């Protein structure tokens, strides 16, 4: 009954896509209007926290290597922490925009975890390529929440932050368990099953 790893990636991609669209809409209309309805204000931090919680079963059941387990555990922790901080910001429990550094840290930790737990080269197979791509993408994207700390009203930073999730979702949708990437696949990777 356990889903194949690629299906888990696609389900998380769906969550990230919805998250990205909500953030994009917030960037366009402005935080003040977006937060006029309480449920909308809590959508983004709530989804981030929920995705962090859902990462724990992934860590528990997908133990094909210790590195995978540690990487998924790290993602669960940083996503939950960043989601909790955003929840506290929306609730008004904390006020300083510098708390948003937790999201920059979440991106940096996630990116590093992607790069560290991928042991193969870029063109070994598709999931290797995507791990490298997602890792570097998240490390670069960590700049956007950083800019939001310095300039909380920057529309560029808010839009780029939203698009980070949309692009991340596209990368996750591209994932397959064993598949070629741009025509490359190592004979050591196994036989593509679809």
């Amino acid at each position, binding site marked *: *009954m356990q*889903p*194949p790893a690629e*299906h888990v990636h*696609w*389900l998380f*991609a*769906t969550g990230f*896509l*919805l998250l990205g*669209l*909500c953030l*994009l*809409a917030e960037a*366009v*209309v402005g935080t*003040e*209007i*977006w937060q*006029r*309805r309480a449920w*909308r204000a809590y959508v983004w931090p709530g989804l981030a926290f929920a995705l962090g919680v859902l990462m724990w079963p992934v860590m528990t059941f997908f133990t094909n290597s210790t590195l995978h387990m540690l990487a998924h555990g790290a993602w669960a922790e940083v996503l939950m922490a960043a989601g909790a901080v955003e929840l506290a910001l929306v609730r008004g429990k904390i006020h300083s925009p510098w708390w948003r550094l937790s999201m920059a840290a979440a991106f940096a930790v996630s990116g590093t975890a992607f790069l560290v737990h991928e042991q193969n080269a870029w063109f070994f197979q598709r999931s290797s390529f995507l791990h490298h791509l997602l890792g570097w993408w998240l490390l670069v994207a960590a700049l956007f929440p950083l800019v939001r700390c310095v300039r909380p009203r920057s529309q560029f930073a808010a839009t780029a932050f939203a698009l980070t999730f949309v692009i991340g979702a596209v990368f996750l*949708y591209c994932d397959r368990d064993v598949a070629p990437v741009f025509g490359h696949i190592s004979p050591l990777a196994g036989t593509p099953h*679809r």
Partner: protein
Amino acid sequence: MSAELVHELEVPRQRTARARFVTAIGPLTALAGAIWAIVQPYRITLLHPHGQGFWWLFVEPPLLVIAVGLFFYFAIVPGLLEDLEEAGAASR
């Protein structure tokens, strides 16, 4: 005897660029999912369900993208547009 009838005319509302953009996000996402489904029909296992397991039938990426676009359009956009128009009217 005379009676005056006052008709309220619906003035066509001019949507701002922001409102138009927000309205377009959902349909564009759904369109992207539909194009993906056409380009890679083999990603939709419902089209050839014989011998497929539960997860292959439950998780259909192009359909999930379409579902996200439609959910955003029907569940999130209407309230957001109302608030956007209220804010616009208040600022005038």
